[in-house]
């Protein structure tokens, strides 16, 4: 019942939003190439999927973000644990990492283009720089804020070395790491789209620019909707499910 009500509220809201949009388009305050009607955006969505350009864009972008994100996780874990395990690094590198995080990741693009040229590697570099820091900082936080009792209990029960890390330290810091992974994903996604807009690269970002080049506002909005939808699916479905599962395991208020 509650769920139904929620769905109803959402439906009403979006129906109203699209209604106002359609109405404004119908009033022709702005020309259609500046302010397209919902129907023409829908048509662009259909066309895009029909001529496979959207499918290709999604596939290319997803491939890039999966590779870049995976790289970030591996590097971030190594870096974060390294920083957390050494007091000197923590003081020096830890501070540097935090200040670097204030740099929008797209600022790495000029550097990436000079280093790697207009290549796949340049885009991957920007994606990795976008999410690496969040993940590193989260790993470091996780190691530092994890209650010490788990480490002691693990050692007490005979865990050491890699086993201690894998079976105790990693799961014990998971609540911290997960929030970092989520933030890292969001940054990676933003960085990827920005990076793809800069040069011909297939991908969703490039599709946006194609819309601009063709003066096709419907296409631009259609791709924007697509980007939002993918972000929403990953964040809402994957990360929220993981978080919920974690909360169920740890109890409603995590013991951290």
């Amino acid at each position, binding site marked *: 019942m509650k769920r139904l009500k929620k769905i109803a509220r959402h439906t009403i809201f979006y129906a109203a939003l699209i209604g106002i949009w359609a109405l404004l388009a119908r009033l022709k305050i702005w020309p259609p190439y500046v302010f397209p009607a919902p129907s023409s955006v829908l048509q662009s969505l259909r066309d895009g999927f029909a001529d496979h350009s959207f499918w290709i864009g999604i596939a290319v972008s997803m491939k890039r973000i999966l590779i870049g994100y995976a790289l970030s996780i591996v590097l971030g874990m190594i870096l974060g644990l390294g920083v957390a395990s050494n007091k000197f690094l923590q003081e020096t590198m830890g501070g540097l990492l935090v200040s670097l995080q204030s740099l929008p990741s797209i600022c790495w693009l000029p550097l990436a283009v000079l280093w790697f040229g207009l290549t796949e590697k340049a885009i991957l570099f920007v994606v990795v720089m976008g999410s690496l820091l969040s993940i590193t900082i989260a790993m470091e936080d996780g190691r530092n804020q994890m209650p010490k*009792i*788990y480490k*002691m*209990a*693990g*050692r*007490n*029960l*005979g*865990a*050491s070395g890699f*086993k201690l890390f894998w*079976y*105790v330290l990693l*799961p*014990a810091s*998971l609540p911290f790491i997960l929030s970092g992974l989520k933030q890292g994903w969001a940054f990676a996604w933003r960085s990827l789209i920005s990076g793809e807009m800069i040069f011909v690269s297939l991908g969703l970002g490039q599709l946006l620019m194609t819309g601009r080049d063709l003066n096709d506002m419907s296409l631009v909005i259609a791709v924007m909707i697509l980007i939002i939808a993918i972000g929403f699916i990953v964040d809402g479905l994957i990360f929220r499910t993981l978080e919920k599962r974690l909360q*169920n*395991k*740890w*109890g409603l208020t*995590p*013991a951290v």
Partner: protein
Amino acid sequence: MTLNSSNFPVTEERKLPTHVGGNGRWKSGAAPNITTLRANDGAPSKVWLKGISLQYKASNGSRLLALDDISLQVKPGEFLCIVGPSGCGKSTLLHLIAGLHQPTSGTVLVDDHLIDGPGTDRILIFQELGLFPWLKVGENVEFGMKMNGVSKAERKDRVQHYLRLVHLSKFKDSYTHQLSGGMRQRVALARALATEPDVLLMDEPFAALDAQTRDLLHDELERIWSETGCTIIFVTHNVREAIRLGDRVALLTFRPGRVKREYAVDLPRPRHLEDPSVATAAREILNDLREEINKSIEAEYQGANV
């Protein structure tokens, strides 16, 4: 400080325990006399602390002596309780025996082997338990065995066995946050026992429990002790609890922790917290303890005024 306590039931003479507990390694003739405990009387020691001292480095650079020349011997199958005011280093002492820290000087011997790291022959049950919230109850119990390469089939059997021992078979697939305090305590006990340690170290395990649950767990612990025959070193600030459970009670002084006195508890088992004999015995230890508690309060008071 003299060691001659005379009043029944705290006696100087260590007699054969009247319960059927322990693993039968008690030799009737080898009953130690507490006055001679410090010298090796030839009886086997399960745990032997030889002149343990521990110095902390405080954050302001000054050194704090936490434990000072502690010597204790624990017989196989013995139930030793350690009491003392808060801040006397009782918990630290257990951490040293568990091998989680190293003493500044002195040695910890278990079965005449020098302890220089953790080992599953000694399992510590922490005051805050340290159960893993990401694992189910059964997986928590299984953990120590898994770390030590016990085969999967045997792990399964032992998980079942030890969960049954603490009456938690039905909760194998629950997460620890779904259990009550007393149940969590029993999970910690099962997790420790599942590695089949010779020595069980318990750090104020029942301090946070309500009286009924605690009474129940006293009974269960005593039963498990007699069934497994393990040696138990049990730290508590509750003197009555120490007498309820222990074969012997060691009283530590306030900072630095020293062994102020040892008491043999010669009451027949099972005992109850409200037994008059337990209360009488407790009163004597409490008199000695009060002095130390006053010191700790004084130190806190001075600390607050700085």
